[in-house]
């Protein structure tokens, strides 16, 4: 890798891949060959950069130049200009939407500021399909250290001391989990990697698996050694074909190098990993449901205790950690527990990857120290709200998290603060909403997801969530009453209190937190029957301001249902009983005569 003078790194994550980054790579190679540069310049397909809204991304080393929105046809200019003449291709550089400055390197990007990359350390840097590159970036060094220098309890102690907590959502201390699995003696034990990433909009696990699969394999082997297990299973969604294929390649390469399988590194420790596929059920991210799914049973949770660490896969002690948790491990082993514990907040150590989405300028993956405030994430790293609109709320924790509002902007984000604020960490989805979003509709939207994804085993989740959704629907239609708001709250609290697993215990969070933080918006829906954000169709009315209307008839002609009448050159009127609120008239009107009431 060091032989070449120039490296062109092309993002091969799912998003960039979907925008023809493969073809771009082919074209780059063809251009290089045509110019007899193939020995001097190397093209690397990396994992996700986290800059998904700017993809496909190309980074050129040396110089760290970042090109965004690169199309396959741009290969020619990149080679002829940048590679051959050393001139940057200006048109492919990124212009910051806020500052309007042209930014040439990754470091200059506002989204890159404040980030510390532990989990994503190799994503966008190494070729994930080449184990040598991973090894060059220290992969398997920690495993070697553990196998040759440490005893299982010593490894567990480091993990405990590091303060690492499960990144899957629950935030359970990882070291403690390992210790329980270690103490439950059995002839067979299992290490399971939960790669059933199901939060809509969250894709950090996928990015790690696509960009740095060896980080996970190595950590699973370390875990195996620590809890005295010889078998690892990765439960991954079948909808992640690229991650699956890279994992398979990585497992194969690791076996060939003696880093998985029998007698790893000649130490006598055996550990191998198999892949199990999930069919995309959200609830299978819950560890007992995940285990049942792997056993070939219906993917639904069972009561804990017994915890998987006592009785898990096939009734044997099983340690389940998620991808991001595993990805933190080797740096902890190599750099020490103190180093990791020095990052983050008091009770939440290390970093957390967030998937920024919604009405924010920089959409994508970021990794920041725990304890970073919401303001820093949204306004500094995220580049603020799109189109200069006003920030309204941020949903954390995926569909079953809660909304944080302006009053939470200075709150340092960590496991405990989020729960205290009525939300949760979840897997790290962060959806930003602006003034145009109706919070009742937002709650309904998230509930739509949990209603769909409930396994149906327990009554409160199966039926209760459906009832919540129906009531929200009722309210957005303007048919609700003040008493319904109390009923919403009671149902939500009971569903949380009585549901069997984490899904139902958290699914009413969006309702409760919007009800708490945006009560006046709910009240507007049920008392004056208005949607302040103007989102709920049933609660709005298109209206023509006679004074502004010149009678051009454009609106009447575009109306698909003939709801608008009026003589030429006379003010027109909309019949609200016919109007379907499609908005076509408003779009068509050149005189700002049509408004929503």
């Amino acid at each position, binding site marked *: 890798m060091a032989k070449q003078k120039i490296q062109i790194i092309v993002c091969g994550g799912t998003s960039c891949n979907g925008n023809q980054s493969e073809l771009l790579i082919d074209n780059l190679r063809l251009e290089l060959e045509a110019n007899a540069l193939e020995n001097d310049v190397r093209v690397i397909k990396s994992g996700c950069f986290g800059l998904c809204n700017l993809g496909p991304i190309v980074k050129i080393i040396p110089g760290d130049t970042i090109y965004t929105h690169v199309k396959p046809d741009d290969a020619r200019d990149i080679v002829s200009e940048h590679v051959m003449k050393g001139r940057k291709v200006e048109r492919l550089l990124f212009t910051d939407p806020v500052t309007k400055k042209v930014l040439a390197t990754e470091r200059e990007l506002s989204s890159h500021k404040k980030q510390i990359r532990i989990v994503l350390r190799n994503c966008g840097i190494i070729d994930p399909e080449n184990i040598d590159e991973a090894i060059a970036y220290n992969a398997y060094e920690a495993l070697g250290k553990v196998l040759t220098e440490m005893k299982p309890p010593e490894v567990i102690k480091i993990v405990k001391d590091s303060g690492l907590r499960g990144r899957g959502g629950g935030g359970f201390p990882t070291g403690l989990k390992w210790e329980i699995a270690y103490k439950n003696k059995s002839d067979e034990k299992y290490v399971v990697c939960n790669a059933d990433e199901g939060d809509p909009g969250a894709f950090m696990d996928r990015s790690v698996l696509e960009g740095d699969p060896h980080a996970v394999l190595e950590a699973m082997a370390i875990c195996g050694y620590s809890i005295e297990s010889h078998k690892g299973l990765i439960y991954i969604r079948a909808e992640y074909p690229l991650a699956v294929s890279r994992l398979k390649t990585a497992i194969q390469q690791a076996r060939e190098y003696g880093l998985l399988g029998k007698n790893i590194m000649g130490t006598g420790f055996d550990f191998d990993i198999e892949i199990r596929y999930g069919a995309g059920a959200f609830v299978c991210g819950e560890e007992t449901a995940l285990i049942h799914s792997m056993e070939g049973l219906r993917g639904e949770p069972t009561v804990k205790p017994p915890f998987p660490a006592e009785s898990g896969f096939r009734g044997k002690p099983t340690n389940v950690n998620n991808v991001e948790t595993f990805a933190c491990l080797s740096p902890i082993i190599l750099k020490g527990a103190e180093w990791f514990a020095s990052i983050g907040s008091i009770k939440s150590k290390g970093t957390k990857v967030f998937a920024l989405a919604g009405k924010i300028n920089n959409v994508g993956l970021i990794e920041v120290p725990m304890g970073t405030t919401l303001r820093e994430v949204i306004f500094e790293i995220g580049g603020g709200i799109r189109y200069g609109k006003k920030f309204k709320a941020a949903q954390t924790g995926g569909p079953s998290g809660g909304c944080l509002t302006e009053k939470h902007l200075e709150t340092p984000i960590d496991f405990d603060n989020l729960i205290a604020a009525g939300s949760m960490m979840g897997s790290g989805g962060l959806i930003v909403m602006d003034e145009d979003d109706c919070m009742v509709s937002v709650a309904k939207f998230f509930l739509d997801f949990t209603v769909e994804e409930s396994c149906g085993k327990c*009554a409160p989740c199966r039926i*209760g969530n*459906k009832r919540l959704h129906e009531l929200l629907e009722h309210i957005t239609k303007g048919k609700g009453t003040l008493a319904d708001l109390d009923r919403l709250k009671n149902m939500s609290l009971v569903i949380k209190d009585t549901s069997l697993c984490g899904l139902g215990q958290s699914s009413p969070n969006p309702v409760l937190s919007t009800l708490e933080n945006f009560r006046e918006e709910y009240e507007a829906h049920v008392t004056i029957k208005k949607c302040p954000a103007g989102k709920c169709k049933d609660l709005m009315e298109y209206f023509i301001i006679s004074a502004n209307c010149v009678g051009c008839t454009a609106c009447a002609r575009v109306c698909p249902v003939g709801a608008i009448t009026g003589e030429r050159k006379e003010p027109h009127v909309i019949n609200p009983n016919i109007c379907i609120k499609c908005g076509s008239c408003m779009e068509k009107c050149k005189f700002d005569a049509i408004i929503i009431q």
Partner: protein
Amino acid sequence: METLKLTIDNKQVEVPKGTTINKAAKQLGIEIPTLCYMELHDLNIENNPAGCRICVVEVEKRRNLAPSCATRCEEGMVVKTHTTRVLNARRTVMEFILSDHPKDCLICAKSGNCDLQAMAHQLGIREIPGQEIAAMSTYKKDTSPSIIRNQDKCILCRRCEMMCNTVQTVGALSAVNRGFMATVAPAFEQNLEYSTCTYCGQCVAVCPTGALTEVDNTPDVLRALADPTKTVIVQTAPAVRAALGELFGMEPGTLVTGKMVTALRALGFDYVFDTDFAADLTIMEEGTELLDRLTRHLKGDKTARLPILTSCCPGWVNFFEEYFPDLKDVPSTSKSPQQMFGAIAKTYFADKIKVNRKDLVVVSIMPCLAKKYECQREEFSLDGNRDVDFSISTRELAAFIKQANIDLNNLEEGEFDAPLGESTGAGVIFGTTGGVIEAAVRTAYEVHTGKKLPKVDFNELRGLEGVRSATIDFDGLPINIGIAHGLGNARKLLNDVRSGKSKFHAIEVMACPGGCIGGGGQPLHHGNSEIIKARAAAIYAEDKKKPLRKSHENPFIIKLYEEFLGKPNSEKAHHLLHTKYFDKKKKIIVKQ
């Protein structure tokens, strides 16, 4: 045994480690309401998916309420079972469940006998908030020869699924779909008919609501009785008399044989007969077959397969036709008592009373739902006329008696009609697990040894353990007997037979836990295994008081062979009283 102490509703209790909160509370006399939970302890059957969330309680230091049926006690735990938080949660969850349940109690088969209805009443639910905007989950109806599925009424208690999979290992029912549309159904939501269902009816027996019910054949019977051109005769299975009384407020285990006969006569049946008679006949045929196979086997005849398996349980026959078709020459070829009765009634008896078989309607009262399917099997009819026309369950009979305004409690004791009403104690014990084989042993012993039995009761063959075995000394020849009740237990014995490891000469199998007394057509036990034990005791009591207790001593059986059949396993007997089995292993058929 390791124990631990905890506090429930401010009272201290000490329980063995592993005890659930629910059971610990019971020890203190605190009843925590449950809905999906069910336990049949002597049969080792427990259902606690913790799905209904009605039994939730408050546990100190826990964030959420805990399901008491599935939460194990811990040392020092502090539990509150009826706080306002708990009561509000229970009520709200119950409102959720009811909001997705049809309100047609007026015409529901389970009305008055429905766990959900009882719980709604107990929790004092008088209205369901938001019902007017609440969607209901609805599913297609499924009617099979024995069982009707109406999943609109399913509350996902999963009892049926547990019975079908864990206890019976039939695997016809499991949860399908997710979220609001989750329900229990055969794979791909096909009809039961295309599934591996054996119609044992254990799902129906445990269903808390009207989601799973029997096919009601009482209207067919009523129509036959109302038709003056038909002669309608009835046969009653042994287990019915030990349970029917429960549906008229009598204590479990009350025998109502005589009152039942009077009631049937009052309903208008022309002849009231006893399936026990046919049970005696079954012993003659099956016992002879056993001795024949045994003798040939002892002589080294390799074609004589042992063990012989009983074949009177139709659920069990369906089971081995589905799962062990390769062993279909192992069970006895003797028809079940129901079908032997039908075959004799429509030949011997029809001739005797000079009625054409087409004008003779044979009705059976069975503790069983698979019997409905059995009497519809093609091989049990002649030119489309069934040997047994209709089979109704104990529950259907009770409903029928009530319709006719007959007060069972105050009826005189009647006697069965002759000649198909006379039976021995051996016929009676067919109704409980171990009974068929005990009856067979009583006869086979005497026929084989030519000696009188020193004692008629074989206690070693009785009991409720799932798999039992005993060795009976046939005057120097040790005969190894195996008994299984519940199809899951039967599967274990069958696997041994298949792999050639079985040491038994004869095996009795009953599909239902407890045998016919625990059948799918019996009064619902609501998870109380004491009821099953009481019924078994009643059966043995009836046997004990019979003057004749061995099938071959039944004078009417002797006469039947003399007048009509010749001798056991004769050609005529083979033609009328024996059957064959089919390979019914389901291929993948997707039909809607």
